[in-house]
């Protein structure tokens, strides 16, 4: 066995497994669930913990403060023992993730749009980037299966999408959505209630949404579909093993150039070797290239699965400016799921706009008492001193917010590398990201901001606040750093997720995306993971040929 350090140090070795999955988030859970019916011995190693519903912020009076603490979307601020740091100093977009069973789905809004058919054919349609090696229609059955397992609230019939049937009724429009809808109808622009992975009825053993409001930092009710309460219980019942607090340092290879297993640190901090017949990486668009690059060896000096030089490149993070407006009546505030509807009016390419591709407009309700004050103070909207209370009372539960979810095209210089200094708590080198916003994206953002202002005016906002220059607002979705494709010289994995270089190594997370679309990625990440799992199952007889 050759390791990155080039040594053959004696270390405890675990019993070999058929399938080793690294990461228990959106894609790792889906692939584990799907492969479970093969009766192979499947193990998932997860660096974080299970999060109990009683630990989520909405259980306590400090629920808003904790979104800036142990439930912050940034691993650098959150800094749990189970997190690893990310050097994102050289990027206007910051990283959002969560390290625990469920991964990022524990800490997401549950906004659940699919990619559109055109998103898989950007080269053919618009002459930019590359086409995907799969298309919407190939993935459609997997979208549907994923919707069924996760449970998706929405409404069939959206003219901006091929027909699909969400499994539950949409979340309420409420007062806020009604305001937005009136504005969009006045402008004659498309809108539709969003697909949201929130149970609006009792669903598959999950309680229905009771409008706790703060979906992003975890749902105490269990109505939000995070994979720790959707896929994982089923996968565990089917025999998959999940070990928490196990952080993988590197993937090892044997003399035949095949993955032989992983070196990891167990919950006691002991370095162990886990042999495996097949390794599936599901560690997200930052964690996956970090792991592959940290797995460099004499056989793979530039990192594992990186003969193309594409590992870490083409990072896409979805720049997402948000435009605030205030009206003179109370609306929903933070007392319902945050997202309510979307518009695809500007999603498909129109060359007259001055950019290619497009964006989703995402319509949000307001926020809570403390967060309204904190965000408004930080943006300079809320004064200190004698006028504070009067001004605050014109804002609380009176805000509208439109987000511009811009498609981020792949560029080789936007990348993940290994930081030469920064390390995690186990001494494993940490990732660094270098990212700049492209001119096309900047023009797209400008266009989206201008349209958002029109919407907010039509909605009756008396005051509108644009994002300050350079402030893009995360989410910081993590996509594109181990892209899929037919050509081994220009891609890391093939059209069904297998490494071109290492025939028993698969990648199933957002890093394999070729382009990013202008949508939240979880639905498509999971559909793709289910598709890859199905390919593995269908090709078992000659999987590594």
């Amino acid at each position, binding site marked *: 066995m050759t390791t990155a350090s080039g040594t053959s140090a004696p270390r405890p070795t675990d019993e070999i497994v058929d399938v080793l999955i690294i990461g228990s988030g959106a894609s790792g859970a889906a692939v584990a669930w799907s492969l479970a019916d093969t009766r192979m011995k499947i193990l998932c190693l997860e660096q974080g913990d299970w999060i109990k519903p009683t630990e989520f912020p*909405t*259980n*306590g*009076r*400090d629920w*808003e*403060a904790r979104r*800036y*603490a142990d439930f912050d979307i940034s691993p650098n601020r959150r*800094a749990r023992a189970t997190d690893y740091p990310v050097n994102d100093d050289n990027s206007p977009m910051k990283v959002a993730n969560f390290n625990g069973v469920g991964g990022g789905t524990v800490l997401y809004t549950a906004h659940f749009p699919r990619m*559109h*058919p*055109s998103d*898989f*054919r950007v080269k*053919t349609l618009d002459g930019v980037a590359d086409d995907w090696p799969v*298309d*919407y*229609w190939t993935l*459609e059955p997997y979208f549907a299966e994923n919707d069924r397992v996760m449970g998706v609230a929405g*409404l069939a*019939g959206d*003219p*901006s*999408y*091929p027909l699909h049937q969400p499994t539950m009724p949409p979340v*309420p*429009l*409420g*007062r806020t*959505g*009604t305001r937005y*809808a*009136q504005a969009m*109808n006045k402008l004659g622009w*498309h*809108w*539709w209630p969003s697909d949201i992975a929130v149970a609006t009825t009792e669903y598959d053993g999950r309680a229905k*949404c*009771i*409008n*706790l*409001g703060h979906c992003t930092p975890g749902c*105490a*009710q269990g109505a939000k579909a995070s994979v720790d309460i959707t896929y994982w219980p089923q996968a565990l019942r089917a025999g998959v093993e999940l070990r928490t607090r196990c952080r993988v340092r590197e993937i090892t290879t044997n003399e035949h150039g095949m993955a032989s297993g992983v070196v990891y640190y167990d919950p006691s901090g002991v370095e162990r070797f886990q042999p495996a017949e097949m390794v599936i990486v599901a560690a997200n668009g930052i964690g996956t290239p970090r792991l592959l690059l940290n797995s460099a060896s004499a056989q793979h000096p530039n990192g594992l699965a990186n003969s193309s030089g594409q590992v870490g490149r083409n990072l896409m993070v979805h720049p997402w400016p948000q435009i605030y407006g205030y009206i003179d009546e109370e609306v929903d505030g933070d*007392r319902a799921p945050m997202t309510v509807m979307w518009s695809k009016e500007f999603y*498909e390419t129109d060359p007259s706009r001055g950019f290619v591709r497009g964006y989703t407009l995402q319509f949000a309700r307001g926020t809570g*008492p*403390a967060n309204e*004050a*904190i965000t408004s*103070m*930080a943006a*300079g909207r809320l004064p*200190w*001193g*004698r006028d*504070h*209370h009067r001004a605050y*009372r014109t804002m609380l539960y009176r805000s509208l917010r439109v987000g511009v979810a811009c498609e981020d095209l792949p560029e080789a210089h936007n990348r993940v590398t290994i930081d030469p200094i920064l390390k995690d708590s186990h001494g494993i080198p940490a990732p660094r990201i270098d990212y700049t916003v492209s001119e096309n994206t900047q023009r797209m953002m400008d266009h989206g901001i201008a349209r958002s202002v029109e919407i907010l005016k039509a909605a009756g906002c008396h005051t509108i606040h644009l994002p300050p220059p350079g402030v893009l607002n995360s989410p910081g979705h993590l996509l594109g750093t181990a892209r899929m494709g037919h050509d081994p010289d220009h891609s890391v994995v093939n059209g069904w997720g297998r490494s071109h270089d290492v025939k028993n190594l698969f990648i199933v997370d957002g890093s394999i995306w070729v382009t990013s679309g202008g949508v939240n990625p979880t639905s498509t990440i999971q559909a793709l993971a289910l598709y890859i799992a199905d390919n593995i199952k269908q090709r078992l007889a000659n999987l590594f040929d």
Partner: protein
Amino acid sequence: MPDQAVSDLTPGELRDLRRLAAIMVPASTEHRVPGADDEAIFADIVRSLGRDREAVRKALALLREMAGGDFSRLDAATAETTAMEMLARGGSTVTALGRAVLQCYYRDDRVFIALGLEPRAPFPKGHQVEQGDWTLLDAVRGRPRMWRDVDGGGR
């Protein structure tokens, strides 16, 4: 005043922070709310500095520098002018200071009640949300297909 072992701030820093908090969010009889320097609120602020502790200390050091010494000993007018000048500088330090104060102020029972809110956590009671006007969607239902069927799968 809170226990210094808990707060980790010096007595001087605690005095300056309390004076500053009173200027940032003052008590108001008109709105029936205490200031952020209220004993219970201030204790919560100090107890909850957490990840913002070092940034708050930086802000207090800057304030002390601008005050030419103890900020807490300045007369009212000078203290307000100095505080506002410091807060107007903005940046991550002031943002952290603001977060430290506001996250505690806007969870105090008295402030919640004055705002007409129930002083409770969201779970388990949740909230009632009206459905809204779904007839507005009729204007969209009849629109022609907007998505591009490049692969012909939508036939």
